[in-house]
């Protein structure tokens, strides 16, 4: 079986490697698809839904991060409908928690903000929820601010799959879902945390940050984790969970 396949992205024929997901194939060909939960080297979960695309012959939208590219597949990554849906998804995330960019350490270095900018979000049509959420400062080096969390679960996966410490999990369900440390401990009292900081580096927003930075100062070093994750061989293209 040849290792190269061809697929059509937005009408244009491009080459991809067998086993790549649509997302990876698009990225390899410099096509932009937004995605918050996807992270190179970690397993895919298809949770944020920003990366959905239309595939010819399939009557529903598919998450490009979990759908394998197949030879001859015709994919639409941009359309008025997709743009509207993705914007709605972003607006829902902004309305869900308390994202006050002006005072955020990741302001201007935030994936959520960048996507909003790129997709032309100028305001949020939904009512802001203003939940009362914790900021856990108990860890000596890091901080988790639940007000800024988009529940992408990159932190959970990097901790499980790369570091193997299993510190983070998702507690609760539905709109009450939140990232929790072990048996809901303060992070500073976590029994298994190795203080490696990978969770901080993969976090797309300012929810996980290093202490000691002021607004706009936190720049995540995702490249390091990506490389590590790939070297450790946990990279799992098109994989599940």
């Amino acid at each position, binding site marked *: 079986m040849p290792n190269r396949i061809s697929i059509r992205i937005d009408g244009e024929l491009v080459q991809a490697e067998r086993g790549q997901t649509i997302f990876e194939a698009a990225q390899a060909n410099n096509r932009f698809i937004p995605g918050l939960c996807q992270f190179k080297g970690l397993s895919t979960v298809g949770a944020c839904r920003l990366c959905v695309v239309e595939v010819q012959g399939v009557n529903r939208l598919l998450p490009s991060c979990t759908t394998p590219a197949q030879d001859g597949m015709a994919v639409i990554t941009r359309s008025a409908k997709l743009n509207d849906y993705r914007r709605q998804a972003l607006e829902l995330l902004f309305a869900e928690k308390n994202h006050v960019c002006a005072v955020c350490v990741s302001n201007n270095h935030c994936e959520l903000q960048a996507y909003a900018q790129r997709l032309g979000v100028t305001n949020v049509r939904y009512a802001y929820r203003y*939940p*009362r959420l914790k900021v856990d400062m108990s860890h000596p080096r890091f901080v988790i601010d639940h007000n800024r969390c988009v529940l992408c679960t990159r932190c*959970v996966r990097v901790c*499980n799959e790369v570091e193997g410490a*299993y*510190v*983070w*999990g*998702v*507690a*609760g*369900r*539905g709109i*009450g*879902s*939140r990232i*929790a*440390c*072990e*048996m*809901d401990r303060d992070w500073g009292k976590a*029994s*298994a945390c190795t203080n490696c900081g990978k969770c901080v580096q993969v976090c797309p927003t300012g929810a996980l940050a290093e202490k000691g930075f002021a607004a706009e100062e936190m720049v995540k070093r995702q490249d390091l984790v990506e490389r590590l994750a790939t070297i450790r061989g946990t990279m799992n293209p098109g994989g599940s969970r």
Partner: protein
Amino acid sequence: MTFAPPSPAQLRREDQDFLDQIISDQDGRPGMLLTVLERIQERQPEKYLPAPMLEYLARRTGIPESRIYNVVTFYALFNLKPQGRHTVCICRGTACHTRGSMRLLESVRLQLGLREDEDEGSADKLTATTPDGAVTVRTVACFGQCALAPVAEVDHQVLGHVNERALQREVEQLRR
């Protein structure tokens, strides 16, 4: 797991034996974690999952604490707080709803002076216990007793076609 677990606080010998037994019974079987947790909760007079037992379970089985916490906060059946000695359970199924079950819930809450907890993040935020620990009021998605709607359950006894007054009388009985 190589880390040092937190001190296994107040775990009684018999609880530990019970846990060892049930873990070895269930080990490796599908649905094991759910079954073990159900058994633990069922054994507590206050129908909840005490933290020390969960910590021991994690240590003994190697299931990460974060996963156990994930599971116990996901399913509506599990309680992390002690439950009341009596339980009043109101069905919020469709048939019951169309026959006014929410009004029953309001009236019982009012009678017991309970308020709805907002955004607690628990799976079933409609659960509340009186401060004296006497009565827990909860709801259930559906008893499957739709032909008897509206339905309430007081200490596991089903009351069909119940109205506010009848339910209030039952609750009054509990508090005696």
